[in-house]
């Protein structure tokens, strides 16, 4: 018998299904994290949190130390952040696994906003659940991010998330449009090593007679 720490679900090797394991390892922590963020946001600011704002908060929680990008995300989500003109974005519904799942977790969505039933209990339960999974740092980071970024307007969140990604200006934003966030992080690493490589030379320096404006 394998009992995942603190989880209500007990998995037996004999009847364990692959999907339930995936669910247990990625979906559940993600749901608890989102629940914690919604509950703490409601506790602190006394209102439900907008989906777009929540997506940005999740980005800061999982991918940054508050301002700068981490080398690897703190957890793996069952969904993918994408980069759009307004910064990184993810479908919260998709991460949660759909409406019926939300009801199960006690998360309520009205229009574009998320709320939890029983703010204080939800907060404590999800915090405890993350700690039991060995994710105390993640829970603390969530609280820190909601404290620091929760009160900001959408425009500020967009600017700061793009800054964290190192995306400055419209040209880079356009070149990165509709990239998955993790692909972007890998590409930036590869770009740095290509630019630093001594094995190749910029073609515009090799052939300055060619790479110039015409007309």
């Amino acid at each position, binding site marked *: 018998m394998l009992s995942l720490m603190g989880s209500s679900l007990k998995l037996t090797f004999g009847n364990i299904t692959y999907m339930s394991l995936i669910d247990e390892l990625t979906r559940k922590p993600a749901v608890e994290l989102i629940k914690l963020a919604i509950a703490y946001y409601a506790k602190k600011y006394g209102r439900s949190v907008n989906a777009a704002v929540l997506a940005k908060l999740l980005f800061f929680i999982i991918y940054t130390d508050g301002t700068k990008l981490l080398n690897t995300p703190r957890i793996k989500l069952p969904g993918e952040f994408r980069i*759009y*003109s307004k910064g990184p974005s993810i479908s919260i519904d998709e991460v949660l696994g759909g409406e019926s799942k939300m009801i199960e977790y006690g998360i309520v969505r009205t229009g574009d906003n998320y709320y939890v039933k029983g703010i204080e209990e939800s907060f404590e339960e999800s915090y405890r659940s993350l700690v039991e999974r060995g994710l105390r740092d993640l829970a603390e980071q969530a609280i820190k991010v909601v404290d620091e970024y929760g009160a900001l307007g959408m425009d500020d969140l967009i600017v700061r998330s793009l800054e964290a990604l190192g995306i400055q*200006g419209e*040209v880079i934003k356009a070149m990165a449009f*509709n990239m998955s966030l993790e692909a972007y992080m890998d590409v930036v690493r590869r770009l740095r090593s290509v630019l630093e490589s001594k094995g*190749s030379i*910029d073609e515009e320096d090799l052939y300055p007679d*060619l790479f110039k404006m*015409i007309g």
Partner: protein
Amino acid sequence: MTFRAFHVFIDTNVLVNMVYAITLHHRLNRPRPKILDLLENNVLEIYTSIIMVNELDDVALPKLLTSVDREMHGWVNVETNEMEEYCISELNSLVNMRYVRVIEEDGSLELQRRALKYKPSKRVCWKSNIMDKLLSRIPNEDIDVINSLLYAYDLLATVRRKRGPGTISGKLVFVTEDKHLRNFVERQLTCYDCPCTSRIIAISYKEFKDQLRQI
């Protein structure tokens, strides 16, 4: 489709220089151009149109090969038509490796192309009244180029929302060395009250490389 690398749309005058620089490296042992590293490391995906490719074959490549300083570029002992064959075969191999992607043909854009074909109203621009006005102002030889540019915009810089109606749209980077075309894109393609306004950013090759160095 989600991009796994940075992406730009390039004009014939840039494609031809790029192909030429890579050919010189592969066939004549000239220094390795940085662009090849960027492509081979999947940092960058280059998109272009069949219009650009045809123009390269018919006009741009023969013109380049007869005008460059062969001695300076290290191929004084190679016949022009032989060099032309080398370049064409290099371009083919870049397309086969999918380092250069032709928007009308590339497999990854199939779904997007089909969506636009069956629902042309999904296109951001190309509204007949606006385009009639625009097209009357550009030189004949540029009509195809502008057409492919707008098509590229719709294919590369818009994403249909998974849930709910509408599209998420970004901007498209168009790399060109043609001053007139650039002016046209910057000044005329910003038709009044049209969704296409400022959606396409035209930059030179040098500016494009500078942007990569800023990330």
